[in-house]
């Protein structure tokens, strides 16, 4: 294809603008990363831009030695892994019947499910429910109320609906039950979309913040987001350090410790993201086509 001069200029500008947008998305993170590995004086004088100045990892040592960050990390993992497994199991069990035209009451149940997306009881009634179920301070409060996300349910249902019916008919003639049909024919065909919704659920659990703040008061059970948030918002951690570990505290700035906390929490996401991106995008696309 030949491009005119005007088009060439347009493409040039377009590439430049997109490059700027792309850089805007990652550079702040690079800056925080550089800061987390810089020494006190470099941070305090604002000398750090995108590369560590006077390499120093005492922010991380303080974090690992003086805060329960490993425990919080482990809690985040437990919340994410168990929560996601439950989510996926029950989303499949919800989506399969709803995808079947012969499921009696399908339209009613679909409406009832979608309605919960439009109208919710809100914070306090949910809090009182979990309280009366004795789930406060337990991870059940994080796993159960969001067991099935309507959005992910719709994604999976429309995927199931799109599978060729001939496959099922053939299996049915062979005498397969619905359970066998689901586990041996439908699920093996649904790998990518199951991966996508697992990832959506997983990210939600990993990033859980408000629910942990509200329902989990026991500091031994809090996750990484809440721990890092407390680190960012109050200075008491630094004051405690100054009392207990003066020579270590002397090497630190609050900004350096905060930066290290942000990086520790971001790292798992950054490591996994390039490998998982295509599943995320696929899931979002399926959701988009269905609307």
């Amino acid at each position, binding site marked *: 294809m030949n491009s005119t001069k005007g088009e060439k200029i347009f493409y040039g500008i377009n590439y430049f*603008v997109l490059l700027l947008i792309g850089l805007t998305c990652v550079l702040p993170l690079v800056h925080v990363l550089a800061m987390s590995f810089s020494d006190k004086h470099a941070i305090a004088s604002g000398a750090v831009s995108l590369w560590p100045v006077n390499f120093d990892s005492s922010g991380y040592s303080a974090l690992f030695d003086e805060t329960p960050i490993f425990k919080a990390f482990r809690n985040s993992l437990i919340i994410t892994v168990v929560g996601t497994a439950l989510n996926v199991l029950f989303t499949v069990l919800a989506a399969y019947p709803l995808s079947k035209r012969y499921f009696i009451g399908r339209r009613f149940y679909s409406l009832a499910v979608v309605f919960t997306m439009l109208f919710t009881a809100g914070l306090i009634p949910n809090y009182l429910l979990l309280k009366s179920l004795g789930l406060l301070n337990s991870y059940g409060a994080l796993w159960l109320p969001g067991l099935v996300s309507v959005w992910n349910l719709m994604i999976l249902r429309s995927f199931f609906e799109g599978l060729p019916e001939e496959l099922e008919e053939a299996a049915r003639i062979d005498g397969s039950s619905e359970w066998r049909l689901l586990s041996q024919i439908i699920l093996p065909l649904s790998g990518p979309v199951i991966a996508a919704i697992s990832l959506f659920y997983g990210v939600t659990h990993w990033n859980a913040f408000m629910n942990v703040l509200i329902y989990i008061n026991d500091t031994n059970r809090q996750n990484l987001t809440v721990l890092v948030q407390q680190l960012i918002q109050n200075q008491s951690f630094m004051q405690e350090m100054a009392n207990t570990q003066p020579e270590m505290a002397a090497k630190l700035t609050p900004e350096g410790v905060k930066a290290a906390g942000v990086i520790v929490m971001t790292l798992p996401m950054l490591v996994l993201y390039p490998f998982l991106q295509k599943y995320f995008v696929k899931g979002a696309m399926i959701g988009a086509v269905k609307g």
Partner: protein
Amino acid sequence: MSKALPPPASAITNPSQEQARTRSNWLVRKYGKRVLKQNVPLYLMFLPIMIFFLVFKYYPMTGLVIAFKKYSFLKGIWGSPSAGLHSFQMIFNNDQMIKIIWNTFKLSGLSILIGFPLPIILALLLNEVRKMIFKRFIQTFVYLPHFLNWVIVGGIVVTVFSQNETGVINHVVKWLTGSTFPFLYNETSWTSIFIASGVWKEAGWSAIIYLAALTTIDQSLYEAASIDGANKWQQTIRITIPAIMPTVIIMLILKIGHLMELGFDQVFVLQNDAVSNVAEVISTFMYKIGIQQANFSLATAMGLFESIVGLVLVLTANSIARRFGQGLW
């Protein structure tokens, strides 16, 4: 029509046993034996889901009566004395709470106004990229912030805009003007930062939906248009935009429907005492007054107000869209 119809004889004489039998016969007649048999495993699968939705989604709605009561811990939801509309009077006669509702609308409305068009523009720009590697590279970058939680984004914002010299922005500002600016403690700049951080986090990811819509456009339309001498800009206005319009409208309905649900996380991690005049919103207020101060009736009333306005907004937006043939349902 003055004479009332006598009840049908069968309704009086049928014993209940026969009624039950007719009902199951009716099921068989309506759906057939085979379909009923097929439905047994489906219902077994669906049963836990029904219980889940009843217990965790529908049952809490009954808890909304707290909004009309004077809730006390000892008496529980149903035993607490009725207070009528007292909680709502407290909300609407209180300047501070009106302010909070207004803040919610303002921050949310501005976020939509500025945040809604940008993903569309980004998708259009990405769609014009011919070098696939470059496109994928940029996409990887712009999707990334979506996966960072608000604590991370808040941490980044606080670091970058910090008022003392450690903040990279103020480092530059001081070099330019000779003094630093309290970005996070000034109401106007805080609002801008709030909106910008939302755009930064979500604009890239939201573009995916439009990119998906763009791939469905028939390429021969562009060929025909360019033979007719239409330039890039005309093609965009006449072909691309109309083609993605249904997606745009659906996304706008969804956005408007969630106008009231300004995310708790974003406000909570960014707000500070200096800007509470513009930064206190319904969700953070409910948390503070409901969970921290245990004033359940007031917080529930606020939540009910939020939910109802949200529902009305969705239904209104949808009926408007339906008039243009683009409704969500």
